[in-house]
């Protein structure tokens, strides 16, 4: 499996989970859970693709992890900014910390993931 695809799938799965945890961490968001999960999944898919593409171009575990952390943080910060801009609570820690960690996980996983060599 190609790294960008692997990153996209992993990011998407973690994004779904990340969105669903809002039910536990912020129960008052339950009426909007569908849009939260969709937004979180899209964020995960985008982060996963970017990190996977980076892993394909740059073969370095430390750089992959740093890039994953950076992308995860950046996208999570975007969500926080949108919340604040729309007058809702920022949920800084609840969004920034797990979002960055998801980026880190995808960064690590895509660097360690071996693309299958073409058949000879």
């Amino acid at each position: 499996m190609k790294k960008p695809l692997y990153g996209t799938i992993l990011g998407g799965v973690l994004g779904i989970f990340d969105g669903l945890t809002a039910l536990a961490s912020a129960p008052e968001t339950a009426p909007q859970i569908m849009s939260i999960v969709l937004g979180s999944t899209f964020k995960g898919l985008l982060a996963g693709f970017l990190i996977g593409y980076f892993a394909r171009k740059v073969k370095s575990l430390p750089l992959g992890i740093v890039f994953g952390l950076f992308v995860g943080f950046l996208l999570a910060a975007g969500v926080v900014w949108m919340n604040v801009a729309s007058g809702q609570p920022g949920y800084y820690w609840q969004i920034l910390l797990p979002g960055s960690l998801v980026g880190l996980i995808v960064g690590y996983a895509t660097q360690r993931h071996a693309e299958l060599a073409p058949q000879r």
Partner: protein
Amino acid sequence: MTVPSSPPGLSDDALRRLRDAAELPEPDPSRYLVLERIGRGGMGAVYRARDVLLKRDVALKVLHVGADGGDVAARLTQEARTLARLEHPGIVPVHDVGVLADGRPFYTMKLVQGHPLDDVVRGRPQADLLRLFSRICEPMAFAHSRGVVHRDVKPQNVMVGEFGEVLVLDWGVSKWASARDAHDAALPAAAAGIDTGAGAVVGTRGYMAPEQARGDSANVDSRADVYSLGMLLTHMLSLSSTRGMPRPLSAILRKATSVEPAARYADAEALAKDVLRLLAAERVQAHRENFLEQTLRLYRRHRTLVLLVAAYLLVRLILLLWQANTAPGG
């Protein structure tokens, strides 16, 4: 040149030196200068020689004085031809073949400078030995793909070079798996069929497959080498610093050394692949694992990823607890 077997008044040591001197090959001095004997087997001896023309040291293999010229000479020629056909980094390349003035055939090959397998493996961890073993399988797999069966795989016939390269030596009793393979290699029919007749036993006790020990040459194929490789791996692991053996590894050894050839791996490549699967914490072909073993193997394979996801879940939990404590009325 003949040497009396027990001349009166000579010590054993003097007799040995006299015999060595008599056996010393005398190739064309304008081409090779024999320096010293570096090995001796049942069929012949190997000498370090100086290639005068190319100004390099080579290994010169020649039959013993008085060796029965027919089959043994043909076997030496067969070995040279087999080696010449098997061009692989793990197989010593042949440089030249010829006949000495006394009629003994010889061939020269690359002079291998390395360490015996036992010296290299002693006290090493199991994983290192498995990696080394998979590299021993590489030239064997190549030979099998070319239709050649070594028939004498044992620790003494494996050498590890200065840079960790592995060499499989002594292809003197190797066999072509089929007459067609021998024909493709342009071997004379007599050479292709050496020692392959019913009842002829070639190999080394303790390492040779049951069908080989029975002299059932017609049924000796790459699976006989797989058996020998299994015994070789058992020997290597007995010298390891790691105690105990995981069940998949035991299963690999059992499969490789099955009494029935049909139950073994088809060739060295299949065996090496299973060993590499074990090293990569993948499921091995030889072992049907239960749920617990599968879980543990997947954990070992993705240990860091599992720990990272666990860290993520922990962060989620901490945030939840923190939130519960800081919430109004919490």
